[in-house]
Protein backbone atom coordinates (compact mmCIF):
# COMPACT_ATOMS: atom_id res chain seq x y z
CA UNK A 1 0.00 0.00 0.00
CA UNK A 2 1.39 3.36 -0.92
CA UNK A 3 0.88 6.65 0.79
CA UNK A 4 -1.17 7.78 -2.12
CA UNK A 5 -3.59 4.95 -1.42
CA UNK A 6 -3.90 5.76 2.18
CA UNK A 7 -4.33 9.40 1.58
CA UNK A 8 -6.83 8.92 -1.10
CA UNK A 9 -9.84 10.45 0.35
CA UNK A 10 -13.30 9.51 1.20
CA UNK A 11 -14.45 8.06 -2.04
CA UNK A 12 -12.90 4.89 -0.89
CA UNK A 13 -12.35 2.23 -3.41
CA UNK A 14 -12.73 -1.45 -2.51
CA UNK A 15 -10.79 -2.86 0.35
CA UNK A 16 -7.09 -2.31 0.47
CA UNK A 17 -5.19 -5.52 1.08
CA UNK A 18 -3.41 -5.71 4.36
CA UNK A 19 -0.07 -7.29 3.87
CA UNK A 20 2.57 -6.09 6.19
CA UNK A 21 4.64 -4.08 3.80
CA UNK A 22 6.21 -1.70 6.26
CA UNK A 23 6.28 1.92 5.28
CA UNK A 24 9.51 3.46 6.40
CA UNK A 25 9.12 7.08 5.40
CA UNK A 26 7.01 9.42 3.40
CA UNK A 27 8.31 10.23 -0.03
CA UNK A 28 9.47 13.79 0.21
CA UNK A 29 7.95 14.71 -3.12
CA UNK A 30 4.50 13.67 -2.03
CA UNK A 31 2.56 16.85 -2.34
CA UNK A 32 -0.89 17.21 -0.95
CA UNK A 33 -2.56 20.50 -1.71
CA UNK A 34 -3.33 22.06 1.67
CA UNK A 35 -7.00 22.49 0.76
CA UNK A 36 -7.32 18.80 -0.04
CA UNK A 37 -5.70 17.81 3.20
CA UNK A 38 -7.94 20.19 5.03
CA UNK A 39 -11.04 18.68 3.52
CA UNK A 40 -9.69 15.26 4.30
CA UNK A 41 -9.05 16.01 7.94
CA UNK A 42 -12.30 17.82 8.40
CA UNK A 43 -14.12 14.70 7.37
CA UNK A 44 -12.93 12.97 10.53
CA UNK A 45 -14.39 13.70 13.90
CA UNK A 46 -11.20 12.82 15.69
CA UNK A 47 -8.70 10.03 16.24
CA UNK A 48 -11.33 7.39 17.05
CA UNK A 49 -13.13 8.21 13.86
CA UNK A 50 -9.91 7.92 11.91
CA UNK A 51 -9.08 4.59 13.55
CA UNK A 52 -12.51 3.20 12.78
CA UNK A 53 -12.09 4.30 9.22
CA UNK A 54 -8.76 2.51 8.95
CA UNK A 55 -10.16 -0.63 10.56
CA UNK A 56 -13.20 -0.73 8.30
CA UNK A 57 -11.26 0.22 5.23
CA UNK A 58 -8.86 -2.64 5.72
CA UNK A 59 -11.54 -4.97 7.03
CA UNK A 60 -9.59 -5.56 10.18
CA UNK A 61 -11.31 -7.32 13.04
CA UNK A 62 -12.14 -4.75 15.63
CA UNK A 63 -11.88 -7.41 18.34
CA UNK A 64 -8.47 -8.56 17.22
CA UNK A 65 -6.73 -5.57 15.80
CA UNK A 66 -3.28 -6.10 14.35
CA UNK A 67 -1.69 -3.30 16.31
CA UNK A 68 1.46 -3.02 14.23
CA UNK A 69 -0.43 -2.48 11.02
CA UNK A 70 -2.98 -0.12 12.52
CA UNK A 71 -0.34 1.96 14.25
CA UNK A 72 1.69 2.19 11.08
CA UNK A 73 -1.24 3.42 9.04
CA UNK A 74 -2.32 5.84 11.70
CA UNK A 75 1.17 7.29 11.91
CA UNK A 76 1.21 7.72 8.15
CA UNK A 77 -1.79 10.03 8.44
CA UNK A 78 -0.33 11.89 11.36
CA UNK A 79 2.88 12.40 9.39
CA UNK A 80 0.91 13.58 6.40
CA UNK A 81 -0.86 16.13 8.54
CA UNK A 82 2.46 17.51 9.65
CA UNK A 83 3.74 17.64 6.11
CA UNK A 84 0.78 19.85 5.33
CA UNK A 85 2.18 22.21 7.96
CA UNK A 86 -1.04 21.83 9.85
CA UNK A 87 -1.09 22.06 13.54
CA UNK A 88 -2.00 18.70 14.82
CA UNK A 89 -4.90 18.59 17.16
CA UNK A 90 -3.64 17.28 20.48
CA UNK A 91 -6.10 14.42 20.38
CA UNK A 92 -4.43 12.90 17.35
CA UNK A 93 -1.04 12.96 19.03
CA UNK A 94 -2.41 11.49 22.23
CA UNK A 95 -3.90 8.63 20.26
CA UNK A 96 -0.58 8.04 18.54
CA UNK A 97 1.02 7.65 21.95
CA UNK A 98 -1.72 5.28 23.07
CA UNK A 99 -1.27 3.11 19.99
CA UNK A 100 2.47 2.92 20.41
CA UNK A 101 2.10 2.06 24.04
CA UNK A 102 -0.31 -0.78 23.31
CA UNK A 103 1.93 -2.04 20.57
CA UNK A 104 4.97 -2.09 22.81
CA UNK A 105 3.11 -3.78 25.65
CA UNK A 106 2.06 -6.52 23.30
CA UNK A 107 5.70 -7.15 22.46
CA UNK A 108 6.60 -7.70 26.10
CA UNK A 109 6.20 -11.15 27.61
CA UNK A 110 3.41 -11.41 30.13
CA UNK A 111 4.91 -11.67 33.63
CA UNK A 112 4.22 -15.10 35.11
CA UNK A 113 2.74 -13.58 38.27
CA UNK A 114 -0.17 -12.35 36.26
CA UNK A 115 -1.14 -15.66 34.73
CA UNK A 116 -3.46 -16.64 37.55
CA UNK A 117 -5.57 -13.58 36.91
CA UNK A 118 -7.47 -13.27 33.74
CA UNK A 119 -5.17 -12.27 30.99
CA UNK A 120 -5.72 -8.68 30.04
CA UNK A 121 -5.30 -7.79 26.44
CA UNK A 122 -3.66 -4.39 26.27
CA UNK A 123 -5.97 -3.62 23.40
CA UNK A 124 -9.11 -4.14 25.45
CA UNK A 125 -9.63 -0.55 26.49
CA UNK A 126 -9.10 0.74 22.98
CA UNK A 127 -11.46 -1.87 21.61
CA UNK A 128 -14.15 -0.86 24.05
CA UNK A 129 -13.78 2.76 23.11
CA UNK A 130 -13.90 2.02 19.42
CA UNK A 131 -17.01 -0.10 19.80
CA UNK A 132 -18.71 2.49 21.93
CA UNK A 133 -17.84 5.23 19.48
CA UNK A 134 -19.08 3.19 16.58
CA UNK A 135 -22.36 2.58 18.35
CA UNK A 136 -22.73 6.31 18.94
CA UNK A 137 -21.86 7.09 15.35
CA UNK A 138 -24.61 4.80 14.16
CA UNK A 139 -27.06 6.17 16.69
CA UNK A 140 -26.24 9.70 15.54
CA UNK A 141 -26.94 8.64 12.00
CA UNK A 142 -30.26 7.11 12.96
CA UNK A 143 -31.25 10.19 14.93
CA UNK A 144 -30.47 12.25 11.87
CA UNK A 145 -32.81 10.10 9.81
CA UNK A 146 -35.75 10.31 12.19
CA UNK A 147 -38.61 12.60 11.22
CA UNK A 148 -37.96 15.87 12.99
CA UNK A 149 -40.04 18.90 13.86
CA UNK A 150 -39.26 21.72 11.47
CA UNK A 151 -38.11 19.39 8.73
CA UNK A 152 -40.47 16.51 8.00
CA UNK A 153 -43.33 18.09 9.88
CA UNK A 154 -44.11 21.33 11.62
CA UNK A 155 -46.23 22.33 14.54
CA UNK A 156 -49.51 23.88 13.54
CA UNK A 157 -50.45 26.91 15.51
CA UNK A 158 -52.97 29.70 15.58
CA UNK A 159 -52.28 33.24 16.70
CA UNK A 160 -53.73 34.92 19.69
CA UNK A 161 -55.74 37.92 18.62
CA UNK A 162 -53.44 40.93 19.02
CA UNK A 163 -56.14 43.11 20.42
CA UNK A 164 -56.27 40.88 23.46
CA UNK A 165 -52.60 41.17 24.18
CA UNK A 166 -51.43 44.42 25.65
CA UNK A 167 -48.19 43.00 26.91
CA UNK A 168 -45.19 43.09 24.65
CA UNK A 169 -43.07 39.99 24.29
CA UNK A 170 -40.15 39.87 26.63
CA UNK A 171 -36.76 39.04 25.25
CA UNK A 172 -33.80 37.96 27.30
CA UNK A 173 -30.15 37.85 26.36
CA UNK A 174 -30.46 34.11 26.35
CA UNK A 175 -33.31 34.30 23.81
CA UNK A 176 -31.19 36.52 21.65
CA UNK A 177 -28.26 34.18 21.75
CA UNK A 178 -30.50 31.21 21.08
CA UNK A 179 -31.83 32.98 18.00
CA UNK A 180 -28.29 33.60 16.84
CA UNK A 181 -27.31 29.98 17.34
CA UNK A 182 -30.34 28.99 15.27
CA UNK A 183 -29.31 31.40 12.55
CA UNK A 184 -25.90 29.77 12.53
CA UNK A 185 -27.18 26.25 12.24
CA UNK A 186 -29.18 27.31 9.22
CA UNK A 187 -26.29 29.20 7.70
CA UNK A 188 -24.28 26.03 7.42
CA UNK A 189 -26.60 25.05 4.61
CA UNK A 190 -25.55 27.98 2.49
CA UNK A 191 -21.85 27.43 2.30
CA UNK A 192 -21.23 30.50 0.23
CA UNK A 193 -22.74 32.77 2.84
CA UNK A 194 -19.87 32.23 5.11
CA UNK A 195 -19.60 34.56 8.00
CA UNK A 196 -16.13 35.01 9.26
CA UNK A 197 -15.36 35.47 12.89
CA UNK A 198 -15.57 39.08 13.71
CA UNK A 199 -15.22 41.24 16.70
CA UNK A 200 -18.52 42.51 18.00
CA UNK A 201 -17.01 45.71 19.31
CA UNK A 202 -15.90 46.70 15.82
CA UNK A 203 -19.53 46.61 14.80
CA UNK A 204 -20.44 48.60 17.84
CA UNK A 205 -17.93 51.30 17.00
CA UNK A 206 -19.15 51.33 13.41
CA UNK A 207 -22.63 52.08 14.67
CA UNK A 208 -21.31 54.77 17.01
CA UNK A 209 -19.41 56.49 14.24
CA UNK A 210 -22.43 56.42 11.97
CA UNK A 211 -24.58 57.97 14.66
CA UNK A 212 -22.02 60.69 15.18
CA UNK A 213 -21.81 61.42 11.47
CA UNK A 214 -25.56 61.71 11.41
CA UNK A 215 -25.32 64.62 13.79
CA UNK A 216 -22.35 66.40 12.21
CA UNK A 217 -21.96 65.98 8.53
CA UNK A 218 -18.18 66.28 8.51
CA UNK A 219 -16.04 65.12 11.34
CA UNK A 220 -12.30 65.46 11.41
CA UNK A 221 -10.74 62.06 11.32
CA UNK A 222 -8.78 62.78 14.48
CA UNK A 223 -11.94 63.85 16.29
CA UNK A 224 -13.25 60.34 15.94
CA UNK A 225 -10.54 59.35 18.39
CA UNK A 226 -11.41 60.72 21.78
CA UNK A 227 -8.64 61.72 24.05
CA UNK A 228 -7.97 59.15 26.66
CA UNK A 229 -9.10 56.31 24.45
CA UNK A 230 -7.16 53.27 25.45
CA UNK A 231 -4.99 51.66 22.81
CA UNK A 232 -7.25 48.67 22.18
CA UNK A 233 -10.29 50.94 21.88
CA UNK A 234 -8.44 53.20 19.46
CA UNK A 235 -7.47 50.20 17.38
CA UNK A 236 -11.03 48.93 17.31
CA UNK A 237 -12.23 52.40 16.42
CA UNK A 238 -9.74 52.60 13.60
CA UNK A 239 -10.75 49.20 12.25
CA UNK A 240 -14.37 50.34 12.45
CA UNK A 241 -13.56 53.36 10.25
CA UNK A 242 -11.74 51.20 7.74
CA UNK A 243 -14.64 48.81 7.71
CA UNK A 244 -17.11 51.64 7.12
CA UNK A 245 -15.01 52.88 4.22
CA UNK A 246 -14.76 49.40 2.81
CA UNK A 247 -18.51 48.92 3.02
CA UNK A 248 -18.96 52.34 1.44
CA UNK A 249 -20.88 53.75 4.32
CA UNK A 250 -18.52 56.68 4.85
CA UNK A 251 -16.08 58.73 2.81
CA UNK A 252 -12.71 59.87 3.94
CA UNK A 253 -11.48 63.00 2.17
CA UNK A 254 -8.50 65.29 2.19
CA UNK A 255 -8.13 68.64 0.40
CA UNK A 256 -4.40 68.31 -0.17
CA UNK A 257 -1.49 66.23 0.92
CA UNK A 258 -0.91 66.34 4.69
CA UNK A 259 -4.15 68.29 5.21
CA UNK A 260 -6.45 66.96 7.89
CA UNK A 261 -8.61 64.02 6.94
CA UNK A 262 -12.35 64.43 7.10
CA UNK A 263 -14.88 61.72 7.43
CA UNK A 264 -18.40 62.11 6.10
CA UNK A 265 -21.37 59.93 5.45
CA UNK A 266 -21.32 58.46 2.00
CA UNK A 267 -23.53 60.55 -0.24
CA UNK A 268 -26.84 62.04 0.71
CA UNK A 269 -27.67 63.42 4.10
CA UNK A 270 -29.20 60.87 6.30
CA UNK A 271 -32.18 61.26 8.50
CA UNK A 272 -32.42 59.32 11.66
CA UNK A 273 -35.60 57.41 12.12
CA UNK A 274 -36.20 57.13 15.80
Amino acid at each position, binding site marked *: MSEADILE*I*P*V*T*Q*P*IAKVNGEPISSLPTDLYIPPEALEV*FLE*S*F*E*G*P*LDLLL*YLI*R*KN*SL*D*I*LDIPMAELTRQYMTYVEAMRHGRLELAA*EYLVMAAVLIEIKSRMLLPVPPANTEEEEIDPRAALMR*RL*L*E*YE*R*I*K*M*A*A*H*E*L*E*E*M*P*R*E*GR*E*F*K*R*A*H*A*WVDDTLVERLPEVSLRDL*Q*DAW*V*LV*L*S*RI*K*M*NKHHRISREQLSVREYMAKILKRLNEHQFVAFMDLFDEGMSVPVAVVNFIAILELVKERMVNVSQTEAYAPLYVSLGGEPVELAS
Partner: protein
Amino acid sequence: MSVDQSVAQEAKKLIEASILVAEEPVNMAFLKKLFVGQFEQKQIQQWLEELQEDWRGRGIELVEVASGWRFQSKADVQDKINAVNPEKPPRYSRSVMETLAIIAYRQPVTRGDIEEIRGVAVASNVIRTLEARGWVEVLGYREVPGKPALYGTTKQFLDDLNIHSLSDLPPLMDLQDNPNEVALTLPLEETIGGELELIESNETHLNDTTLSSETT
Protein backbone atom coordinates in the same frame (compact mmCIF):
# COMPACT_ATOMS: atom_id res chain seq x y z
CA MET B 1 -72.90 9.50 24.49
CA SER B 2 -72.87 10.55 28.05
CA VAL B 3 -73.31 14.25 27.47
CA ASP B 4 -75.49 16.38 25.35
CA GLN B 5 -74.48 16.79 21.75
CA SER B 6 -74.12 20.55 21.86
CA VAL B 7 -72.08 20.40 25.06
CA ALA B 8 -69.70 17.99 23.35
CA GLN B 9 -69.54 20.31 20.37
CA GLU B 10 -68.61 23.28 22.54
CA ALA B 11 -66.06 21.26 24.48
CA LYS B 12 -64.31 19.98 21.37
CA LYS B 13 -64.24 23.48 19.94
CA LEU B 14 -62.51 24.69 23.07
CA ILE B 15 -60.04 21.79 23.14
CA GLU B 16 -59.16 22.34 19.50
CA ALA B 17 -58.62 26.05 19.95
CA SER B 18 -56.54 25.70 23.08
CA ILE B 19 -54.23 23.18 21.47
CA LEU B 20 -53.85 25.40 18.42
CA VAL B 21 -52.94 28.56 20.30
CA ALA B 22 -50.69 26.90 22.86
CA GLU B 23 -46.94 27.40 22.57
CA GLU B 24 -46.28 23.90 23.81
CA PRO B 25 -48.17 20.64 23.49
CA VAL B 26 -51.21 20.68 25.75
CA ASN B 27 -51.49 18.06 28.45
CA MET B 28 -54.43 16.51 30.21
CA ALA B 29 -53.91 18.55 33.36
CA PHE B 30 -54.41 21.72 31.35
CA LEU B 31 -57.51 20.40 29.64
CA LYS B 32 -59.04 19.37 32.93
CA LYS B 33 -58.49 22.85 34.28
CA LEU B 34 -59.98 24.28 31.12
CA PHE B 35 -63.24 22.58 32.03
CA VAL B 36 -62.85 23.46 35.71
CA GLY B 37 -63.23 19.83 36.70
CA GLN B 38 -66.56 19.61 34.95
CA PHE B 39 -65.57 16.57 32.92
CA GLU B 40 -63.57 13.49 33.68
CA GLN B 41 -60.33 12.56 32.04
CA LYS B 42 -62.02 9.70 30.23
CA GLN B 43 -64.51 12.05 28.66
CA ILE B 44 -61.84 14.49 27.57
CA GLN B 45 -59.76 11.68 26.16
CA GLN B 46 -62.73 10.57 24.10
CA TRP B 47 -63.17 14.06 22.68
CA LEU B 48 -59.52 14.19 21.80
CA GLU B 49 -59.89 10.98 19.88
CA GLU B 50 -62.98 12.30 18.14
CA LEU B 51 -61.10 15.43 17.18
CA GLN B 52 -58.29 13.28 15.84
CA GLU B 53 -60.90 11.53 13.72
CA ASP B 54 -62.40 14.85 12.56
CA TRP B 55 -59.01 15.96 11.29
CA ARG B 56 -58.26 12.77 9.42
CA GLY B 57 -57.93 13.49 5.74
CA ARG B 58 -56.65 17.03 6.34
CA GLY B 59 -53.09 18.25 5.90
CA ILE B 60 -52.70 18.63 9.64
CA GLU B 61 -53.12 15.92 12.23
CA LEU B 62 -53.71 15.86 15.96
CA VAL B 63 -51.05 13.75 17.67
CA GLU B 64 -50.07 12.88 21.20
CA VAL B 65 -46.39 13.36 21.97
CA ALA B 66 -44.36 13.12 25.15
CA SER B 67 -45.59 16.33 26.71
CA GLY B 68 -49.15 16.34 25.44
CA TRP B 69 -51.31 16.91 22.41
CA ARG B 70 -50.49 19.09 19.45
CA PHE B 71 -51.40 19.63 15.84
CA GLN B 72 -48.70 19.02 13.25
CA SER B 73 -48.43 18.81 9.50
CA LYS B 74 -48.30 15.51 7.69
CA ALA B 75 -45.06 14.69 5.94
CA ASP B 76 -46.41 14.79 2.37
CA VAL B 77 -48.05 18.16 2.88
CA GLN B 78 -44.97 19.56 4.60
CA ASP B 79 -42.94 18.43 1.61
CA LYS B 80 -45.01 20.60 -0.68
CA ILE B 81 -44.77 23.56 1.66
CA ASN B 82 -41.02 23.13 2.04
CA ALA B 83 -40.65 23.16 -1.71
CA VAL B 84 -41.95 26.74 -1.80
CA ASN B 85 -40.39 27.94 1.41
CA PRO B 86 -36.84 29.04 0.74
CA GLU B 87 -36.06 28.84 4.43
CA LYS B 88 -34.24 25.60 4.91
CA PRO B 89 -34.46 23.80 8.20
CA PRO B 90 -31.26 23.90 10.24
CA ARG B 91 -28.83 21.12 9.62
CA TYR B 92 -26.58 19.88 12.32
CA SER B 93 -23.00 18.83 11.85
CA ARG B 94 -21.75 15.39 12.77
CA SER B 95 -20.23 16.68 15.98
CA VAL B 96 -23.60 18.07 17.02
CA MET B 97 -25.44 14.88 16.12
CA GLU B 98 -22.90 12.62 17.80
CA THR B 99 -22.98 14.74 20.93
CA LEU B 100 -26.76 14.56 20.86
CA ALA B 101 -26.62 10.79 20.49
CA ILE B 102 -24.27 10.46 23.46
CA ILE B 103 -26.48 12.66 25.60
CA ALA B 104 -29.64 10.86 24.49
CA TYR B 105 -28.35 7.35 25.04
CA ARG B 106 -25.92 7.82 27.90
CA GLN B 107 -27.56 10.53 29.96
CA PRO B 108 -26.81 11.95 32.40
CA VAL B 109 -23.35 12.74 31.04
CA THR B 110 -20.81 15.46 31.62
CA ARG B 111 -18.89 17.17 28.91
CA GLY B 112 -15.91 15.08 29.98
CA ASP B 113 -17.88 11.88 29.37
CA ILE B 114 -18.79 13.09 25.90
CA GLU B 115 -15.18 13.90 25.15
CA GLU B 116 -14.12 10.50 26.40
CA ILE B 117 -16.53 8.75 24.06
CA ARG B 118 -15.82 10.90 21.03
CA GLY B 119 -12.10 11.10 21.66
CA VAL B 120 -12.02 14.84 20.98
CA ALA B 121 -12.71 18.04 22.82
CA VAL B 122 -16.32 19.19 22.63
CA ALA B 123 -16.60 22.80 21.52
CA SER B 124 -18.92 24.71 23.79
CA ASN B 125 -21.09 25.85 20.92
CA VAL B 126 -21.89 22.25 20.08
CA ILE B 127 -23.70 21.88 23.37
CA ARG B 128 -25.01 25.43 23.08
CA THR B 129 -26.57 24.59 19.72
CA LEU B 130 -28.40 21.69 21.32
CA GLU B 131 -29.50 23.84 24.24
CA ALA B 132 -30.72 26.60 21.93
CA ARG B 133 -32.77 24.06 20.06
CA GLY B 134 -34.26 23.05 23.40
CA TRP B 135 -33.15 19.44 23.09
CA VAL B 136 -30.59 19.33 25.85
CA GLU B 137 -30.52 20.73 29.38
CA VAL B 138 -28.44 20.64 32.53
CA LEU B 139 -29.91 18.06 34.88
CA GLY B 140 -27.56 18.64 37.76
CA TYR B 141 -23.91 18.60 38.65
CA ARG B 142 -21.64 15.68 39.31
CA GLU B 143 -20.20 15.59 42.78
CA VAL B 144 -16.56 15.63 41.74
CA PRO B 145 -14.01 18.43 41.73
CA GLY B 146 -15.10 21.16 39.36
CA LYS B 147 -18.75 20.04 39.65
CA PRO B 148 -19.23 19.44 35.95
CA ALA B 149 -22.75 19.87 34.60
CA LEU B 150 -24.69 16.73 33.81
CA TYR B 151 -26.59 16.93 30.56
CA GLY B 152 -29.72 15.13 29.56
CA THR B 153 -32.35 15.41 26.86
CA THR B 154 -35.55 17.38 27.31
CA LYS B 155 -39.19 16.58 26.75
CA GLN B 156 -39.04 18.83 23.75
CA PHE B 157 -36.43 16.57 22.22
CA LEU B 158 -38.90 13.70 22.40
CA ASP B 159 -41.68 15.95 21.09
CA ASP B 160 -39.57 17.14 18.18
CA LEU B 161 -38.77 13.58 17.17
CA ASN B 162 -42.39 12.63 17.61
CA ILE B 163 -41.73 9.99 20.24
CA HIS B 164 -43.13 9.39 23.71
CA SER B 165 -40.12 8.28 25.65
CA LEU B 166 -36.43 7.55 25.34
CA SER B 167 -37.20 3.89 24.87
CA ASP B 168 -38.76 4.80 21.51
CA LEU B 169 -35.34 5.81 20.22
CA PRO B 170 -33.75 3.39 17.80
CA PRO B 171 -31.98 0.86 19.99
CA LEU B 172 -28.22 1.10 20.35
CA MET B 173 -26.54 -1.65 18.51
CA ASP B 174 -24.73 -4.15 20.63
CA LEU B 175 -21.74 -4.60 18.42
CA GLN B 176 -19.73 -6.53 20.92
CA ASP B 177 -22.18 -9.40 21.17
CA ASN B 178 -22.06 -10.14 17.55
CA PRO B 179 -18.86 -8.90 16.01
CA ASN B 180 -19.06 -11.06 12.93
CA GLU B 181 -22.44 -9.78 12.04
CA VAL B 182 -21.11 -6.27 12.32
CA ALA B 183 -18.09 -6.96 10.21
CA LEU B 184 -20.33 -8.34 7.51
CA THR B 185 -22.99 -5.71 7.56
CA LEU B 186 -20.85 -2.66 7.92
CA PRO B 187 -20.50 -1.22 4.49
CA LEU B 188 -16.83 -1.14 3.73
CA GLU B 189 -17.21 1.42 1.06
CA GLU B 190 -18.46 3.73 3.75
CA THR B 191 -17.62 7.27 2.88
CA ILE B 192 -15.66 8.99 5.55
CA GLY B 193 -18.50 11.38 5.93
CA GLY B 194 -20.13 8.61 7.87
CA GLU B 195 -22.99 7.44 5.72
CA LEU B 196 -23.46 4.28 7.66
CA GLU B 197 -26.25 2.06 6.62
CA LEU B 198 -28.76 0.95 9.12
CA ILE B 199 -28.33 -2.43 10.60
CA GLU B 200 -31.60 -3.84 11.80
CA SER B 201 -30.53 -7.00 13.52
CA ASN B 202 -29.41 -7.85 17.04
CA GLU B 203 -30.63 -4.83 18.86
CA THR B 204 -30.88 -4.50 22.56
CA HIS B 205 -33.57 -2.41 24.01
CA LEU B 206 -32.62 0.83 25.54
CA ASN B 207 -33.98 0.71 29.00
CA ASP B 208 -33.46 2.41 32.29
CA THR B 209 -30.55 0.23 33.25
CA THR B 210 -28.64 1.08 30.12
CA LEU B 211 -29.35 4.69 30.75
CA SER B 212 -28.18 4.86 34.30
CA SER B 213 -25.29 2.46 34.44
CA GLU B 214 -23.32 2.70 31.26
CA THR B 215 -21.40 5.88 31.53
CA THR B 216 -17.99 5.75 29.96
